[in-house]
């Protein structure tokens, strides 16, 4: 048991550090403090900076690390992606706009696209010249992803698509989108789906920002009004869209992010300057606070150390399993507890905005935290995944079994 790299990993890390030091400036503040600003920053200037960085990264051989060499990758084990990510996190490296495209969409294109597709799309994406987004979720298909209604109807060599997607990151600056659509409403839910990709500048595509509960807009709704997609842009067979989507979603696991928002360290620093409920002693000296702080630390470490265990498995060449689901459950619930406790700790004054950066971060994160318990799988869905796929418990009874999609009850 050791935390050291293998010689091969260590050599790679040194190369990565050298590249990053030459390319980016080191990060200034604590990572947690910047999250709420992340997407707001995704403006033209940020995008230009990101694209320039991605091109350098690809040219230096640090993009697509796990991809096969024929797709511009290096065929490395997943642990090398993790190592590069660790080093990248120490720098002001603008990689966010490519996460979904390179993490989920392009691996799907590589797996299911025709040879000309791969030649046309993979390299520009890898170099950051073209950005991809993922168009799966819909207003009526959230936890039940396969319940999508966006219709694609065959029209000669084309398909005509109408419907609505939601919670799409980066739709407004993406060049291409990976689209799951229903091609046969008469088939069973999982059988009537087909996967496409499309030019996001096609006629009839409109992206609108979603105004979130927290006041920010990090995601989009995307509307499709009779959008034409050539059949040549189909990925996989007609009616096989769900199998294709599973490949996309499996790749999502590797992209699981860190703990966003303020964590126990921030709370500890904050408590050192705050008063306990008795109005006299320091909050950090208050035993009730200390008991909670210990629990937050244990949870945060449980997440962090669990990632080390996953990395160990990756290091051995194993695939990341569904147990990664626990990370988000831990982080989201801890964030709700911590932000709530931080507000409470200031008594009457806790809800006042603009008093300090730390306090504002807690307030913004209080409103943002509920989203973390939902995005990328609700607590409830993740617990089902753990129960069924890790513990081997029986599936929920399926009310939608053997029923044509169009005949499923929707409550409408």
């Amino acid at each position, binding site marked *: 048991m050791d935390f050291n790299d293998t010689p091969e990993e260590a050599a790679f890390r040194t190369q990565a550090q050298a590249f990053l030091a030459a390319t980016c400036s080191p990060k200034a503040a604590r990572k947690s403090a910047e999250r709420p600003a992340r997407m707001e920053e995704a403006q033209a200037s940020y995008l230009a900076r990101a694209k320039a960085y991605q091109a350098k990264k690809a040219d230096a051989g640090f993009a697509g690390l796990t991809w096969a060499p024929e797709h511009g990758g290096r065929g490395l084990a997943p642990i090398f992606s993790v190592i590069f990510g660790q080093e990248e996190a120490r720098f002001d490296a603008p990689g966010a706009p490519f996460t979904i495209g390179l993490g989920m969409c392009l691996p799907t294109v590589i797996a299911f696209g025709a040879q000309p597709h791969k030649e046309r799309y993979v390299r520009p994406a890898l170099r950051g010249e073209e950005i991809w987004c993922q168009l799966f979720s819909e207003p009526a298909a959230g936890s*039940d992803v396969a319940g999508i209604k966006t219709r694609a109807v065959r029209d000669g060599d084309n398909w005509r698509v109408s419907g609505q997607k939601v919670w799409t990151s980066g739709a407004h600056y993406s060049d291409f989108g990976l689209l799951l659509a229903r091609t046969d409403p008469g088939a069973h*839910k999982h059988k009537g789906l087909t996967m496409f990709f499309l030019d996001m500048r096609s006629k009839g595509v409109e992206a609108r920002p979603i105004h979130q509960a927290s006041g920010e807009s990090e995601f989009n709704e995307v509307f499709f009004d009779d959008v034409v997609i050539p059949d040549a842009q189909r990925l996989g067979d007609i009616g096989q869209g769900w199998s294709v989507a599973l490949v996309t979603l499996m790749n999502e696991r590797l992209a699981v992010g860190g703990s966003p928002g303020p964590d126990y360290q921030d709370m500890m620093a904050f408590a050192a300057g705050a008063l306990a*409920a008795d109005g006299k002693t320091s909050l950090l000296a208050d035993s009730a606070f200390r008991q909670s702080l210990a629990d937050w630390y244990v949870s945060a470490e449980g997440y962090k150390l669990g990632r080390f265990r996953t990395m160990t498995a990756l290091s051995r060449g194993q695939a990341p399993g569904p147990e990664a689901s626990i990370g988000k459950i831990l982080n989201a619930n801890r964030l709700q507890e911590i932000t*709530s406790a931080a507000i*409470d700790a200031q008594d*009457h004054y806790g809800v006042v*905005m603009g008093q300090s950066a730390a306090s504002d971060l807690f307030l913004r994160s209080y409103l943002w935290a509920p989203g973390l318990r939902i*995005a990328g799988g609700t607590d409830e869905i993740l617990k089902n995944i753990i129960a069924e796929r890790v513990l081997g418990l029986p599936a929920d009874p399926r009310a939608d079994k053997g029923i044509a999609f169009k005949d499923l009850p929707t*409550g409408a």
Partner: protein
Amino acid sequence: MNFDFSEDQRQLRDTARRALVPFAGAAREALEGGPGSELGGLGSGMWSLAGEMGWLGAAIPERFGGVGLGRLELCVLAEEFGRILAPIPFSSTVYAFAETLMACADEATQAHWLAQVAAGKAIGCLAASEGAGTVSPGRIEAALRGGKLYGSKTPVADGDSAHAAIVLAKDESGGLRLVLVALSQAGVSRKVLETLDPTRGHAELSFDGAAATPLGAPGSGWGEYERACDRVAALLAFEQLGGAQACLDMAVGYAKSRYAFGRPIGSFQAIKHKLADMYVAIEVARSNAYYGAWALEQGGRELAQAAAAARVAASEAFTLAAKENVQTHGGMGFTWAADCHMFMRRAKLLAVQIGAPGVWREKLVRALEQSNQG
């Protein structure tokens, strides 16, 4: 044994609920109007309705222009205001300002201000906090010197719209005292504060030689302030209860109508049991709130303990219900357009308004210790 509201009180509730139907969107309007637009709530007519219906003066004696009912009627109204997230300064004006005047102002002061409150002409507030951290006697710096008030208070709920404030201050002898200050005078300045919940007004009030009238006996300030908080806590618990119940109702409604995997999400135990947990928390809060209401109406020594328990339970129920209402709504609950986040905001605002849950748990245990001794 009659541990419930009376037939008359329940009729008052039904009347209020019906009368408030046109104002169901008032909180949303205040939200979209941005900070300080709780005056939109005033402008929308909810405040004048409250005056016309006699709600502002429900517990004010008839000789001062009120309706002369009791605190149980205020509890009934509080629950209804809580349910629709009313964006008006009802709690500050009625639970805090008017009730405190009735407890410790002289007849003339009462006559003047209570009549104004009952007529809907005066908004009042209670100002104690001087910044981050628990309000405690040793941390009060606002000072009364020669009948003039100096210092500043922040945050003051409804301090942005109030005509008068009851302020906790030191007097010349160093003891604490509540003082009454008209806010439309030289020597008073206000800064509107942005808070988590833009549908309710908050301000920092600064006093630089404002004329102030002491209330109660010298040195009585902290005790009177604590008793004022107990009264507010008992009443605010019903606002919180109304908010919590509204969250549960929303979540239940959504769980019945939203389908996933071919069936209503409310048929999944993960959702059913979450909603059952909310129900349990709300019923615990309701039972404790009823006892708080009874103790408030009695006016006896049970109030401190009963009010603290009511407040702890109500803060717990509302924050839980608001949080899990978002979760039940899934992605939809995380949009600005859904009202879920307005309840998240209000739940936290009310949970810290007159002291955070931890402070009230501590108060509750102190009350338990005292009742064990006596």
